[in-house]
């Protein structure tokens, strides 16, 4: 597979196995098996709660409804709050579906691939991305778990990048595929937001491995899991895709 070639030689085998293991999470989709709470509700309200699978279906369609509500609420001119240098969270937390030591290492061969509805599908070396105009932001990362952290990021505005590669900006979605086999997708209006960047630097240093080297997405207008790390491919399309967490039930739009 293409993405394996982009990893460092030492990571090519070990990481693949680890990632495959983590992907096989203990059937989180079956969250309704834990129905004790539902029983409580039924007892309190005397309302009969529908059985597991249909409740799961109803909740999934409510999540789709929430996607539409959030797209409607999203104001492309509304900027996420920016912070001062002194407000930066130190140490900045590491978070992933694996431990920090297992974060993937990009190899010498690394290039950012571009696919889908774009005119120029030439791959990008990190140096080429660094040569593009850069934008800096000190913004808050809000995790779906409830914690938040303020970090300083620098990189290429995704909007600028999409324009440069001749992306069809009328397409609905931009998908990000990552070296750790993570993936996620965002809507085009959010992709074109001025604060959505392909970060190459953290705290004025080259992006460290634990924060998503060599290239990560930074979307301060969405929950943290949308800010994909170790991005190796960007695909512009009209095909709705559920990423790593979305498949397990996280809301797709995940806007802030």
């Amino acid at each position, binding site marked *: 597979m293409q993405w394996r070639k982009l990893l460092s030689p030492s990571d090519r085998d070990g990481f693949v196995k680890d990632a495959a293991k983590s992907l096989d999470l203990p059937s*989180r989709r*079956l*969250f*309704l*098996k*834990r129905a*004790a*709470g*539902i029983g*409580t*509700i039924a007892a*309190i*309200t*005397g*309302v009969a709660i529908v059985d597991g699978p249909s409740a799961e279906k*109803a*909740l*999934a369609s*409510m*999540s789709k409804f*929430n996607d539409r509500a959030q797209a409607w*609420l*999203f*104001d492309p001119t*509304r*900027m*996420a*709050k920016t912070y001062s240098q002194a407000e930066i969270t130190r140490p900045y937390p590491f978070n992933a579906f694996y431990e920090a030591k297992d974060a993937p290492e990009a190899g010498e061969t690394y290039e950012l691939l571009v696919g889908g509805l774009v005119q120029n599908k030439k791959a990008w070396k990190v140096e080429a991305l660094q040569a593009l105009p850069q934008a800096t932001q000190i913004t*808050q990362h*809000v*995790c*779906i*778990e*409830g*914690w*938040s952290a303020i970090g300083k990021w620098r990189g290429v505005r995704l909007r600028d990048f999409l324009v440069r590669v001749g992306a069809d900006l009328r397409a609905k979605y931009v998908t990000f595929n990552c070296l750790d086999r993570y993936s996620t997708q965002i809507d085009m209006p959010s992709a074109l937001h001025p604060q959505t960047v392909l970060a190459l630097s953290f705290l004025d240093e080259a992006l460290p491995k634990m924060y998503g080297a060599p290239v990560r997405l930074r979307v*301060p*207008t969405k929950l943290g899991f949308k800010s994909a790390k170790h991005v190796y491919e960007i695909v512009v399309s009209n095909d709705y895709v559920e990423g790593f*967490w979305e498949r*397990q*039930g*996280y*809301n797709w739009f995940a*806007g*802030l």
Partner: protein
Amino acid sequence: MTVANIAASKSVHPAIVRLTHWLNAMAVAIMILSGWQIYNASPILPFSFPSWMTLGGWLGGAIQWHFAAMWLLMANGLIYLAYGIASGRLRHRFLPISPREIVGDLAAALKGKLAHDDIAHYNGVQKLFYVGVIAALILVVFSGLAIWKPVQVWWLTAAFGGFQGARLVHFLAMSVIAGFVLVHVVMALLVPKTIRAMIFGR
């Protein structure tokens, strides 16, 4: 029509109040139980909720419940408040609240001497309780919106002292509501005719 007939036909709770009450009970139960599961993903106090008393099974499932039931909580709450304000029922039932009445009724209640002859008439403590829980519900909705949309409604989030401040207020408002539910359910069970009135109207 005799006076007795008029009294007998007088409904304690109109149908719309009964309907919104039970829908609210369902929404609040879902919100609190799923909220506890969400809380557990990143506790702000040094404890977690036992998983048997939570809803959703894991963070993603709990959030699906939470963000589905929030629409019910808000829409139902708006209908209740709109009716209560337009009909004058809220003002009539819950106002005025005098501190003297609250202290007096609380003392009587603790001595076991508080009468419940007319369940359509609320004593001072009841008024405080119901107005308090309505205020807490309004607060929980606004702090929840501040957590859900800290960028789009940044001014609301800022009013709560930022994202983490809004989380704390959301938790405290939940605590008030959970405390209310506990007392409310116990009191209703002690005076069962109030439950009958909330189901059948009288």
